[in-house]
Every structure is written in C-alpha cells, then in structure tokens.
C-alpha cells in the first residue's frame, strides 16, 4: 500500500446555492455589470435600452479591471440593489 500526502488545499468548497431564478423580470431591478473589457459598454447600453423599453429599473456597475475579481464592496452593492444581474464579457 502506498501512502501519499494530499497536495491540495483540502478545502471542501462551500456549497452556496444559486438564487432562485425569477419567473418574470416584471418589477425587478436588473444590474448591468461592465467588466471593463473593450466594447462591453456598447453591449450593455443596448441591453439597457431594451430593458428600459420594457419598463424595468436598471442599475449600472463597472469593475475597475477585468483581470481581477470584482471588489467585495462592489459585489455587496450589486447584491443589495439588484434582483438579477447581467454581466458583459466582450472584446
């Protein structure tokens, strides 16, 4: 029998359940997160137009850089203000 040492961090990932998917967007606030990739803003501008046409409330957010995880305060702000969020990956 061979015995070796575990090279990983041995952490069991915390099981955070996804928020329930809404049946409809009616009456909800939609967050639009620009990750600062070039032209992501153009995509989100168009999405905003479409959502506003449907009478939805939209909040815009922007990550300082796409190369780093969103700052914890920004994540908290989005979670507090919005019911759903759309994130734009772009180039």
């Amino acid at each position, binding site marked *: *029998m*061979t*015995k*070796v*040492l*575990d*090279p*990983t*961090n*041995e*952490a069991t990932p915390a099981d955070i359940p996804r928020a329930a998917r809404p049946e409809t967007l009616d009456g909800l606030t939609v967050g639009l997160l620009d990750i600062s990739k070039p032209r992501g803003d153009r995509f989100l501008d168009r999405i905003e137009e479409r959502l506003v046409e449907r009478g939805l409330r939209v909040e815009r957010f922007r990550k*300082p*850089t796409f*190369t*780093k*995880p969103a700052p914890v305060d920004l994540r908290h702000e989005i979670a507090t203000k919005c019911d759903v969020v759309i994130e734009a990956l772009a180039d």
Partner: protein
Amino acid sequence: MSLNESPTLPEGLVAVVKKDCPTCELIIPVLIGLEKETQLTVFTQDDPDFPPGINDRQFDEELAFSWHHNIETVPTLLAVEEGKEVSRTVGWSRSNWESLTKIPGLGRDLPDQRPGCGSLSVDPSISPDLELRFGGSSITARRVEFAALEDTHEALFDRGWTDGLPVVPPSEARVAAMLKGTTRSPEEVVASIPPDLAPCTVEKVAINAVMAGCRPEYLPVVLAGVEAVCTQTFNMHGLLATTMPHAPVLIVNGPIAEQIGMNSGNNVLGQGNRANSTIGRAVQLVIRNVGGGRPGEVDRAAFGSPGKVGFCFAERENDSPWPPISTMYGFPAGTNTVLAFPGEAPRNLVDQLSRDPDSLARTYAANLISIQHPKLVLGFDAILAVAPDHSRVFRESGWSREQLAERINELTVRPGHELVRGAGNIPEGIPEGMKDSDLPKFRESGLHIVHCGGAAGLFSAIIGGWVNGEMGSDPVCVEITP
C-alpha cells in the same frame, strides 16, 4: 517506551558495530578483551550473532539506539557515566580507544588505526524512514492511501494532481526530507494562492515541490517564487485567468543559484537542468493543486505556452557586463532573489554581424516593437535576454543596462498617427486620442535586460510580457530566505 523516546544508555562502555564492516571484524579481539576487564555493552546493527564471543550483545534491529544516539560511523565507542555519554570515538584508533577506556595496550596485534564504515542508521535509503519513525512527524496534511493494486502514478493522474507529466509521489518521508531544506516552520502560511485564495503553508509547498522533482535545497527558492507570484502587484489570478498565453517566468539571482546547481549558461531556457526545470514546475503545481488553477477552468488561455509547465532560470552573473537584474528592484548585488515576470515563450533574435552597441540596439528595437502587435505600445513589458557573444560588445564599449534600455526605447519611438486604430488598414491599435504623440514601445523600466545563455551564439532572446500595470501585472522581486 514510545518510538520518540531515546533508548537508555547502559553504564560503562558501549560499542556500536555491524558485521558488514571490516574494521568491526578487525576489533573483535579488542571488544572481547574489554568485556572481560570492564563493563561493556555491544549494539550490533545487522546480525544478532555478531560479534561472536561477546556475551552482552544487543541487536539494534530497528536502529532505534543508533538513530537516537546519532551513531554515524561503526565502530563507535561511547563512555557512559550515570546514564550520560561523556565521550565517544569513531573507527579504530588505538590511542583514542586507550584514552577513552583508560586501559593501555589495546589490540597490540592490530594496526594503529583504521577508519570505520557508515552506520546503517545514516544509510540514505533508510534514514528518511528512521527520521519519520523516531523523529516524530509534524506533518498535518491529509494522508491518502492507494490500494496495493493501484498504480501509484496512474492514481496521481486520476486525482488531477499532475500537470500532465508524471510526478514524484509525495510520501511522508520525502516531504519530511524536503522540509529540511528550509528553516521555516511547516505550518507557516506562505501566501493565499489564487484562484481559490487558499492559504498555503510551507508544508503544502514542500509537498508540491516533492511532486515537481525538487531537491530540498531548492525549497527556499520555490517558497520565494510562490510569495512573489501571489502578491497583489503580480496578480497571479489575472495571469491565470487571461486568454493570453503568459505565465510566471522566474529569474534567480545571487550565490544560491550556483550553490543549488542552477543553469545560467548553455541551453539556459531549455531542458536538462534539474533545478531550473523543477523550481518553476513546483510553483505551477502549487497554483494548480493548492490554488485550484487548472486549464479549461479558471485558466482560460487560448494557446498557453510550454513555459506554463514551469519557467525558471538563473542570470549569468559571473561574466555579466551589468549588475544583477535584481538591482533594478533595489536589492544589493549578491542578494539571493527571485524575480517573477509575467512572460510568454521566448523567441530567438539573430544578429551575427553587428559589432558595435548602437547597431545591436537597432536590431533589438526592430524586433521588440513586434511584441503582441507592432501597433500596441506602452502596455507590455519584455525581457531581453542577452547572451555572452552579444554582451561582450556592451562590455567593451562600456554601455550600462540603463544606457542600452534607453537607446532601445529611443529607437522604438514612432508617431502616434501610425499606431492608432485603423492606421495602415489595421483596426488594431492605440486609441485615436494618442495620434499626435510620439510614443516608445515600452514604459519606463518596462524593459528587463538579463544576461544569460551559452558562450557561443551571436543571439539574444525576447520574452514578451503580459498587460502591465494596474490593469494587469507588474514584475515582483523578493529575497530568498533560508
């Protein structure tokens, strides 16, 4: 008695011998004589019937006595008073044995002296296990057992713990030996490893260093490499997640490079040197195994590069025209350091005809402007690796590193209107707003000129950088501590 307790020393004289030692054979008559005249206990390591003719003979089969009492040579003779060792002698030397036993005329028929043999307890194939059994283990990592019918190498692949190449199975004995390469405590946290931001101890680094194939004396360099890449400044998370091919390139400076046998010369960026090949690999395995950074998951590289297995080399300091590259980061020459640079694969640059520094600088500039895209400037740093056949030109003309970097930068300057988006019928380029500026390829201190490579070949090499600054990564240099 627990395994970690030292076996009691018998009073009087204690001899430790093994049959497989000609000097031990030689001194049998001396031992028989001593047993008659004084109180003698003989510990034998390899054969319970050796030496013949001795009554008080103890078989040190488990080598517990030999290990706990630091027997390195057989025969060893100890004098014990009130349970404590008061003197010892190793091998056979009539005068030393006489002075230790206070008995004259020992072994008259024997030569005056004979060196002993290695104690079984320090046999390299046995001592790591003894260390583990008797020294007590402070290792806290989870033990993973493989079934007898499992192929260990296949089992390591199956668990996703390798980079696609075989790894050395991280047994407890190997990891304990690896940890002797540093004075740092196994439980000390070295860094939070992206992308999972998992706290990583010295012990976890040691496990991955074993797997990468490192020797214990490389561990301080691996630890410094892990520290350097896991800083906010270096931004390992972004470097891992990017679709670009870059990865940490580790450059080692200071006397440690030669002490651990690193390569800074022939084939410096290639294969064949254990330290170069395994140190970079160990850092990458830490990111994979402790940080959870795996290709196709958080690692989104479109191409990647062969250097993502591990990319580490030493600067050729001994005949460099310039001080070590670490001096750019404020470390005095002679300091052991690791510089982490976010780099892609190297490419060669030929100039076999230039014999003056300015024409070489022109060759460098002409090649360097193409990094990532000739129309993209200021956003990417570079390593320029200069080999001895080129560096000789700069030494003879007295060009400093700064002077060369400045000249290259001057030569790369181009008008913004040639670089903006759309210029030259190429949409890629810098923003329109920069069209009226004259711009160099590199930001200040973006060019890292390093001396390395084999003695023959009128070449230099370029290693392009990833997005620099706040948006991406800045190189980080840290001191290597024991």
